[in-house]
């Protein structure tokens, strides 16, 4: 049986919600309704079911109603009409106390910009849900510590949120949501504000956690790669409507309409997958202040034939080859100045991998992924591109 059942859900923002629902039923579009009534359609006739233990991803462009939809599930947004049945109860009929109970015990939420309480320490943030239920201090600290351990933040219990990096802050957000031991986890673009590599790391860890916990997760994203990687099933939204629900393969191979088709850019992954998705953290880097000896040692340690050089702000400086480093050592040089190669293969994180193929073919070095400020985000070796195209894990 499904745990969550959403039936004919509507959410209209504006002063004539009921009338707008009638107009939607007559087939008017979101734009027509905005022009005619000044009201905004948030959700239009959404129906879907989510199974116990399922990882359900909702995908769509900005403004398509993803955040509104997920907020209807715990009634942070009050739906206009429809039914949301969780565990057999229609939560839209729940009174204030019942709703409070559902939010405390059944459903937790993780937010895009973390939504941490800035005046509370990490552990006090994680304890919050238990604290307001009146759980005694000793027990809630114990549970909070468990949750903190689960997300790998041990040792940071007494830090303040603003002392942590983005990835760590979102771990706090996740721990806070898990501390209540809810059945359902709502995650609204939980990883969208993170750097690409941290983001990938968090995705992997979430999948690992999920394989142990078997929560029911509703996860929102506007990123196809994230959706394909995480979702057991994916729902695609447009203008408040759910236009397709299916597995990653369904969506890739049988897009329901042009909108979905555009989203998945047909099945040619080389045109969909970006450099960001397949890059990886360089196993070793050297600093522009290092000398040829350090360079040679690090390359030997890692069995590299060349190694990237960055400055202290991770700005890309160039690359050094092992043979040049050896010669420089023989010549007794102390700096990399004479041997650093500035002309290296580069790409932006948004680049589609099909465009990397020519470079990869001719270049002797891994491709450096840099942002507009020339910061080195990651590197791509030739094999990753091929794996990326056939859709294998990098």
């Amino acid at each position: 049986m499904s745990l969550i059942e959403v039936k004919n859900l509507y959410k209209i923002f504006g002063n004539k919600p009921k009338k707008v629902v009638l107009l939607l039923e007559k087939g008017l579009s979101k734009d027509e309704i905005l022009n005619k009534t000044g009201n905004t359609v948030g959700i239009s006739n959404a129906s879907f079911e989510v199974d116990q233990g399922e990882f359900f991803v909702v995908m769509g462009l900005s403004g398509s109603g993803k955040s509104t939809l997920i907020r209807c599930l715990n009634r942070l947004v009050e739906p206009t009409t429809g039914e949301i049945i969780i565990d057999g109860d229609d939560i839209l009929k729940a009174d204030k106390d019942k709703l409070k109970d559902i939010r405390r015990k059944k459903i937790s939420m993780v937010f895009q910009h973390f939504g941490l309480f800035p005046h509370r320490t990490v552990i006090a943030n994680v304890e919050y849900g238990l604290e307001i239920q009146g759980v005694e201090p000793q027990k809630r600290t114990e549970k909070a510590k468990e949750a903190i351990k689960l997300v790998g933040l041990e040792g940071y219990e007494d830090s303040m949120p603003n002392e942590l990096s983005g990835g760590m802050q979102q771990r706090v957000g996740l721990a806070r949501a898990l501390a209540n031991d809810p059945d359902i986890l709502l995650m609204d673009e939980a990883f969208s504000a993170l750097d690409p590599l941290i983001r990938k790391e968090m995705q992997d860890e979430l999948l690992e956690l999920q394989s142990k916990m078997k929560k029911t997760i509703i996860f929102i994203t506007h990123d196809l790669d994230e959706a394909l990687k995480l979702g057991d099933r994916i729902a695609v939204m447009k203008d408040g409507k759910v236009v397709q629900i299916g597995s990653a393969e369904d969506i890739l191979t049988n897009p329901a309409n042009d909108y979905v088709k555009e989203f998945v850019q047909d099945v040619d992954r080389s045109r969909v997958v970006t450099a960001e998705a397949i890059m990886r953290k360089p196993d070793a880097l050297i600093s522009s202040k290092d000398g040829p000896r350090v360079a040679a040692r690090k390359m030997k340690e890692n069995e590299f034939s060349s190694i990237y050089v960055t400055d202290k702000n991770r700005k890309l400086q160039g690359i050094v080859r092992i043979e040049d480093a050896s010669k420089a050592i023989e010549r007794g040089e102390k700096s990399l100045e004479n041997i650093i190669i500035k002309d290296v293969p580069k790409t932006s994180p948004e680049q589609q991998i099909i465009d990397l193929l020519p470079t990869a073919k001719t270049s002797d070095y891994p491709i450096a992924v840099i942002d507009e400020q020339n910061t080195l985000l990651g590197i791509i070796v030739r094999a990753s591109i091929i794996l990326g195209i056939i859709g294998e894990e990098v």
Partner: protein
Amino acid sequence: MFDLNIGSYFEIFVLWLKDNFDFLFDFIKNVLEGSINGIEYLLNVIPVIILILLFGLLAWKVSSKGVAIFTIIGLLLIDSMGLWAETVSTLALVLSASFITLIIGIPLGIIASKSDGFDRILRPILDFMQTMPAFVYLIPAVLFFSLGKVPGAFATIIFSMPPVVRLTNLAIRQVPKEVVEAGRSFGSTSKQMLFKVQLPIALPTILAGVNQTIMLALSMVVISAMIGSGGLGKIVLRGIQEYKIDLGFEGGLAVVILAMILDRITQGLGDINKDK
């Protein structure tokens, strides 16, 4: 054109209030008188030098060593000018008026942050209170409470209320939307929301409002010497009326010192909370 005697209508209204709500004014009078006299008594029983050191200690705790030294030297200077009794009297008036202003003002700000309707009604009233020349409050104050400290405190409360109401309202509204959503999503009651999430986050800004309120209260307390509230204002007033430049200057200097001490201490309170 029309000839509307708005002023005389207002006069009729004030007189009507006085005739019909005498019991209320008596009550307010008793509360104000009680708290002013209580604080003044307390400040007077403590020996001067100990009190000065206590203020220094407080300044050190909430602010810095420099402010503590300034506080002690400033208060010693006031004492050496022979203005200690007046300063204590002024301080008692400022503290009780500010205290009552805050007990009324902070809840008003909280309600305004929760209700757009209430906010819309309150806003023009606050504008009115803030821009009306301070002296004007002295007239109804005297009508309701005759002369002395109580009408001084009353006028001060009205005059110094707006900043704390406005900043409390603003501070709560500025708590990031996602943080409020997070609080709600875990099933907070509205009371838990207010006391565990919104107020702690809003506190530094609210304390900035408290600081402004106390500063305004001090400025008004000096003006209210005109209706017999005594204290440092009276010294300044006498300096003006009797052409005594020395007296006027000393009274003025004492007010400035007191203002700086109160300002640094209340600001220090705000900074402590920000640092946390």
